[in-house]
């Protein structure tokens, strides 16, 4: 177990160092997120009352679409120099690759969220610094990364990976999308926890199930 964890952390360290030095993924994701926020800002001339209702949906759509760019890169970067084969040869269990990629993708998603929220607040003149909102987005990002990492691992070896990833991923994310938008909307509307606890529970259950399931099937998914 200790070695497994050490291997996972080594892989995460490598991914973060690679990303920090190249900034390929973060630059693309952040540019896309900011541009989309601007487009929403001009396309939807919202009055202050309707802004709160739309905020949850806009933020989550921006994060999910920008996140898809990152998911695509997370495995194709390994494929470019054949490094995925080297990882398969070197790690004791293939599930460790999944867990490491999941952690990296989640960290990248959270980093993106931390940048998107203040930009949204500035553009829409709406404070979003609410702990429960952050919790909902964290759970949403976890579910998104858990499912997305598995699907990205599956599609990376296909020629149509860029097209296949969103086509396969988005239907599986329906429960997450619904729960995040509903729960975040309720938080922004000032509801009590009891008003959206069922959505938070749904997120938590989805996250745990998808993570465990993905760890179990990852080896079979990436093999021929």
């Amino acid at each position, binding site marked *: 177990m200790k*070695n497994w964890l*050490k*291997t996972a952390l*080594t*892989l995460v360290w*490598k991914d973060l*160092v*690679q990303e920090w*030095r*190249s900034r390929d993924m973060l630059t693309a994701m952040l540019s896309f997120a900011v541009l989309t926020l601007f487009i929403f800002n001009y396309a939807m001339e919202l009055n202050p009352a309707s802004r709160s209702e739309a905020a949850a949906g806009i933020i989550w759509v921006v994060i999910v679409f920008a996140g898809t760019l990152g998911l695509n890169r997370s495995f194709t970067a390994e494929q*470019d*120099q*054949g*490094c995925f*084969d*080297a*990882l*398969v*040869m*070197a*790690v*004791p*269990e293939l599930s460790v690759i999944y867990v490491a990629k999941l952690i990296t993708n989640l960290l990248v998603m959270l980093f993106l969220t931390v940048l998107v929220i203040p930009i949204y607040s500035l553009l829409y003149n709406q404070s979003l610094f609410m702990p429960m909102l952050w919790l909902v987005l964290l759970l949403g990002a976890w579910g998104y990364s858990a499912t997305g990492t598995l699907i990205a691992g599956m599609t990376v070896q296909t020629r149509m990976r860029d097209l296949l990833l969103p086509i396969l991923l988005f239907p599986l994310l329906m429960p997450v999308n619904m729960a995040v938008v509903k729960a975040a909307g309720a938080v922004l509307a000032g509801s009590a926890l009891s008003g959206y606890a069922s959505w938070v529970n749904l997120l938590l259950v989805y996250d745990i199930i998808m993570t465990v399931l993905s760890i179990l099937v990852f080896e079979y998914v990436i*093999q*021929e």
Partner: protein
Amino acid sequence: MKTETDLTQLEARAISKRYGTQRVLDHLDLALNGGEVTCLLGPNGAGKTTLLRVLSGLQRSQTGELLLDGARLDFHQPDARRQFGLVMHQPFLYEHLTGPENLRFYARLYQAELPEAQLRQLLTRVGLGKTRPVPVRSYSRGMKQRLTIARALLHNPRILLLDEPYTGLDQQGCQLLNSLIGEEQANGRVILATTHELNHARQIASLFAVLTRGKIAALIPNVGLSLDDIQLRYQQITQPESVAAA
């Protein structure tokens, strides 16, 4: 020096591999022995790379089995693939990490001890001892190939599979690689190398295996063979019609 009974033996039995309707390997049998260097020859598209991928567990064959020291090799076992050191067409290197960082990273994955002195020694063995620690993306093709060879050796694998290892290497690099292969051969490793560089391969090969039409068509011991002898034997096996016509 290892005795003959200690030496590793890898055996492929009745290996078949198809891509769609194209049969690449057809009930192929091959035995590789520790302390021997087998050079795998064959025309382009003969299935040399596929064979290496199947032997290393990167691809599954449709039929057949692999035996390591007489026991069935099960790639679901955690450490099965870690017994292989692999050099393929792609370098398996991270472009934004430096050479030493790449080696330290892989050493950690293999849980291999790689203290600084050993790292330096390994880099020196492949002729990169004096290279500045710059990201691999600024390395030349030959330097990447040298680093790739160091990566394949760092966890002391029992079996070395080398796919076109001379690619990108200059004359000095080829000689260095041959001396490295010689050292690993003396350590009793199983070594299988695919190559078209017969002149270099002749200096290290114990045996030439010719792969054509999905099977090992001939095993030629490298005993007193000149380059012309090898080329003629190779052509007789892979293009019998043209040799007969000539």
